[in-house]
């Protein structure tokens, strides 16, 4: 640390006379040329072996039929049958709709609530740090445990929520309330993520534009709408991207609370794929369903990345 600009001082070592260690050093230089490759190799192997290969294999699986006690390559080739079956299965097409509706509703609520809380927490008041700490606890809780906690709160006969509203509502057993209950738990868990990202954004914004606008007589609302929000846009986009990606794959809460029921009303794509693969053990269908899911996730990703990029260019 003492010599940050030490490269000039150290340069004479380059022309040091050949020492007994010279041969070793030469080998070191040769090895050095491979440093980057050596450093990247493990990551590359993991990506290829544990990620790329399974994906390629699942692409193959998606064109094979069901086989009891399936051997690696024992399912016969069935062409596009799995994909056709899925796309004509109302449970699958329904699950696409449910996933999109759930994702949109959860992300919208998380963004609005997260932005509101971030703005409040950005005000300099004593004790605000304690509020911040308390508000991020839900996102640290193991998701499946959080969902089980809510399941107890929502219990029809012994749950405290039904007791308070004085009614006997089977929240998770009715198609019209189950998805809403899951939505509430998702928003509870993930609003803190958005809040943290936006709070970091707010803290990094320059204060001059806001102050100048206030001096020029702009109202609070005008400052927020015309200055803070546009400046915050990159952070909003990142929050939007991350939350969309993560809500799209929602699984734990649904598994713990409803398992996709009642009457498929909470059957999101992850749950559908899980049931196909690990309850029905039809890996061909499961693989086809997961490839369709992959493509949708990839499209979502590319859409948001393009949105972020375009912003950076202008």
């Amino acid at each position, binding site marked *: 640390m003492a010599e940050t600009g030490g490269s000039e001082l150290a340069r004479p070592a380059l022309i040091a006379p050949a020492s007994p260690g010279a041969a070793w050093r030469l080998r070191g230089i040769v090895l050095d040329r491979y440093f980057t490759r050596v450093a990247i190799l493990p990551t590359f192997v993991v990506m290829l072996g544990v990620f790329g290969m399974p994906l390629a294999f699942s692409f193959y699986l998606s064109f094979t039929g069901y086989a009891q006690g399936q051997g690696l390559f024992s399912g016969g080739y069935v062409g596009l049958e799995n994909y056709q079956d899925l796309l004509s299965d109302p449970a699958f097409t329904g699950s696409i709709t449910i996933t999109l509706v759930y994702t949109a509703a959860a992300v919208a609520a998380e963004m609005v609530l997260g932005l509101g809380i971030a703005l409040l927490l950005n005000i300099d*008041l004593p004790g605000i740090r304690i509020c911040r700490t*308390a508000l991020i606890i839900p996102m640290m809780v*193991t998701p499946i445990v959080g969902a089980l906690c809510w399941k107890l709160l929502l219990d029809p006969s*012994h749950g405290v929520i039904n007791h308070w509203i004085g009614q006997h509502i089977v929240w998770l057993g009715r198609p019209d309330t189950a998805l809403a209950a899951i939505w509430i738990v998702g928003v509870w868990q993930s609003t803190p993520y958005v809040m943290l990202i936006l709070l970091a954004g707010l803290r990094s914004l320059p204060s001059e534009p806001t102050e100048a606008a206030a001096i020029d007589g702009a109202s609070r609302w005008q400052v927020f709408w015309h200055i803070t929000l546009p400046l915050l846009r990159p952070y909003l986009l*990142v929050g939007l991207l991350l939350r969309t990606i993560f809500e799209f794959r929602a699984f734990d809460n649904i598994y713990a609370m409803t398992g996709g029921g009642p009457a498929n009303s909470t059957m999101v794509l992850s749950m559908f794929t899980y049931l196909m693969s690990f309850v029905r053990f039809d890996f061909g269908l499961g693989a086809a369903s997961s490839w369709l*899911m992959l493509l949708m996730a990839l499209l979502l990703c590319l859409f948001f990345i393009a949105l972020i990029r375009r912003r950076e260019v202008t």
Partner: protein
Amino acid sequence: MAQVVGSNRKRWLEAVLVYAVLAVLVLGFVFPLIWVLGLSLKTRLQIFATPPLYLWWPTLENYADVLTRADFAQAFINTLIVSTSAVVLSLCVGVPAAYAFARFPFTGRTFLFFALLVMRMLPPIAVLVPMYVLFSKLGLATTRFSVVLADTTFALPLVVWLMRGFFEDLPAELEESAWIDGASRYRAFWHIVLPLARPGLVAAGILCLQLAWNDFLFAAVLTNNATQTLPVMMAAFNAGDSGVDWGGLTASGVLVILPVIIFSFIAQKHLVAGLSSGAVKG
């Protein structure tokens, strides 16, 4: 950037309003957990009392029950083994790569980096289906090792993103002068770069730990009764036929989330960096 505020009186009124709104929010967000913590400290009779008890003499009997259960101890050990191994593996694999990404141009750098981003973005269930089939053919399914590998797949991109940022912020002069003094890239990396990046390593490690500790999906598919982790055991609690044991469920829930909450608070500063995964600097 602090908010611009008006006159003193207005300011005071506003503070009260802000505190009131925040109090409601905090209560709303923390209430489910407080209530569950309360349930875990009640006897069976107290749990099902109507109207619910708001004041009672707390009992630790649920905790005593859970802690003496052999399957809980086993699941705890499994979780500990799986998550620490996943952390070590992800760091060992990801940190050198992150350093290379930060410092050296090489062919395919952009492509590899993009691939890593995609890896983080794709839904885990989609990778799990073929992984399960492959692992079971290799005799790896139902082992803890398979869960470690699966967790690593999703922790690795996080490590690379986070550590690349850390390495980029370190001044390059230090390693450069070490190279000029005759140290190999390996030595310079090990003796100069890594010690400087220690805070980053800690943060990345804790984020991986959180990821692996909280993982349910991979562990649910890739383990059996002997190798199951805590989240899997929690879900099984819930599925019991003889009605849910509320005391056991809540007490073990508290025990599962306690360590991860403590870890997360230690890494609080770095949470944002980890969440936004390099998409936003700072």
